[in-house]
């Protein structure tokens, strides 16, 4: 098992290398002048006319062959320098690090109800196969699956912000932002809810929750569908197993057979899918964050991609690949805990 995990980890550098090569190649399709923007200390440098632009291209070696420029970039990465993001107006690593807690907070808050709901609905649908709970759940999930995130998100804004004024967009209200920015308020984690609790400021905590509610509901609804489907299929399969029949035959109560015997084993495939979903969500919930103006990694990544802010795109790509590989690894490591048979192999 450990061997397997190590082999997986060894894949990471290869994936990162190929990925960076790919994005770097995309970047090289821009002209040196376009790429120069990432190096200019201020926009005024670019207004200095052809001569200064040419000098700067020379200075930063933007006309060098591909492999030299790539090598230079990799050298920077290895010393922890991801480059400068024109969009964020700060170093890429600083930007990613400051936005990460916001995304993590949002994703965790959406993922937990999503998982619980999927287990509940999926096993219910499996138990009541082809009866009305199954039909209702099937319609619910297929609607959620087909609902475009941006349409659902805009609907949420329309109802909960425009009409009811319950859940405003953004991360914090103006007043709460002021409180958070003061030196009295210690930023332990960067996640607003946790920091507010640690500082004992319930008003800010409430405000942070108010802002999180709409994106959390959106994410939950849109993501719960696929997980529920996996859970249902897996539940159907386990309910057909011999040991379930044995348990029924020896007269165990229905609830015990369904929930303790069948549902537990039906959780296995869900773990794999849930891990994947979590990884994808951690990679920035691009559309949700954009709609609710929630300053997290996803919104940042979307902005940088639209602006062709390549240092930031590269940094984000590397971050995403690491999250994906690590998350898959965690799922693999959790698997033997859920299914003892795996360990013996």
């Amino acid at each position, binding site marked *: 098992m450990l061997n397997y995990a190590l082999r997986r980890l060894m894949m990471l550098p290869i994936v990162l290398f190929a990925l960076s090569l790919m994005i770097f190649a995309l970047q090289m399709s821009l002209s040196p002048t376009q790429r120069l923007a990432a190096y200019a200390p201020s926009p005024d440098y670019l207004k200095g006319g052809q001569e200064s632009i040419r000098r700067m291209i020379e200075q930063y070696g933007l006309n060098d062959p591909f492999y030299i420029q790539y090598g230079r970039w990799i050298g920077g990465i290895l010393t922890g320098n991801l480059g400068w993001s024109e969009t964020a107006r700060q170093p890429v690593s600083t930007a990613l690090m400051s936005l990460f807690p916001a995304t993590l907070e949002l994703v965790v808050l959406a993922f937990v109800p999503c998982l619980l709901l999927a287990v509940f609905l999926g096993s219910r649908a499996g138990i009541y196969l082809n009866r009305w709970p199954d039909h209702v759940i099937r319609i619910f999930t297929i*609607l959620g699956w*087909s609902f*475009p995130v941006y*349409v659902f998100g805009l609907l949420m804004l*329309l109802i909960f912000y*425009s009409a009811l004024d319950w859940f405003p967009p953004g991360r914090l209200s103006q007043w709460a932002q002021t409180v958070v920015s003061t030196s009295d308020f210690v930023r332990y984690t960067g996640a607003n809810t946790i920091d507010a609790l640690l500082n004992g400021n319930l008003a800010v905590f409430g405000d942070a929750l108010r802002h999180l509610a709409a994106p959390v509901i959106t994410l939950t609804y849109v993501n719960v569908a696929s997980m529920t489907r996996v859970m249902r299929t897996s539940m159907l399969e386990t309910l057909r197993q011999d040991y379930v029949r044995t348990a029924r035959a020896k007269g165990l109560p229905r609830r015990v057979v369904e929930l303790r015997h069948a549902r537990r084993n039906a959780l296995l495939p869900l773990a794999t899918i849930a891990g994947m979903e979590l990884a994808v969500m951690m990679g*920035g919930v691009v559309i949700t964050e954009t709609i609710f103006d929630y300053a997290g990694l996803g919104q940042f990544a979307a902005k940088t991609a639209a602006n062709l802010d390549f240092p930031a*795109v590269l940094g984000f*790509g590397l971050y*995403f690949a690491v999250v994906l590989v690590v998350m898959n690894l965690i799922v693999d490591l959790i698997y033997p805990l859920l299914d003892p048979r795996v360990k013996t192999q």
Partner: protein
Amino acid sequence: MKFLRYLARNPVSLFGVVILTAFVLIAVFAPVLAPPQSFQLSPYDTPRAGFLATPQPPSPEAVFGTTQGQYDIFYGVVWGTRTAFKIGLGVVAISVLIGTVVGAVAAYYGGVIEEVLMRIVDVFMAVPFLIAAMVLTALLGKGIVPITIALTTFGWMSYARIVRSEILRIREMDYIHAARSYGASDLRLIVLHILPNAMFPVLVLATMATGSMVLSASALSFLGVGTEEGYADWGQFIAYSRNWIVGQPGNPFQFWYTLAFPGAAVFLFVLSWNLVGDALRDMLDPRHAH
């Protein structure tokens, strides 16, 4: 026949087929439903009634109302159906082609070639799909060709995986051994005997992906890197509604029509593909038969 019998028993799937058929009809008869005007350079350029910034509610002249900048929503939704079919089917067809070739080559040659190809698949899988597609579209410029290229570039991998594993599974079946024993060539085995049987799961995946690719394409437009200003594209029209989603004080639903019509179009389109895909899987996978 099997399909018809299945539909008769599954009203939900039937509903999906009906909506999909309706969309096909709308796409085919777009020039009749929303005739382009003579001054339009392309039928996909949505006509506009003036340049007023505020959206206008449905009226006899514009039955679905107009967006900011007075683009006709009805026209955009009707011609947007064609855009959706073009992008959805285009992306999926090219992706299936690339994926099938990569998967088949990997499974056939095995060894180093397989290892390399499947690691390439892994690398592409580790790319954040939407962001990568945004970057590529932004580089290539606006329009449905760049969108199609971008979505294909980062969307072919799952087909390669499925085709490869299906071939590996089918290769060991008795009828393949039988065919080999009477001297069928490798190429003949793959193209005539293995691939046709490996295509069923691909078909299911492709059907479902058509809807989600249209979602992604609209998302690109929504995020501002998709189609040109005024192009008949649902995502573009939903993007227009974004600034107006918060109505005026006392009238929160004032601009409902800017979101409702294009939003419903994307939703129903994706829904119909998902329902049809679901039905196909139920029919083709014996484990789902009940």
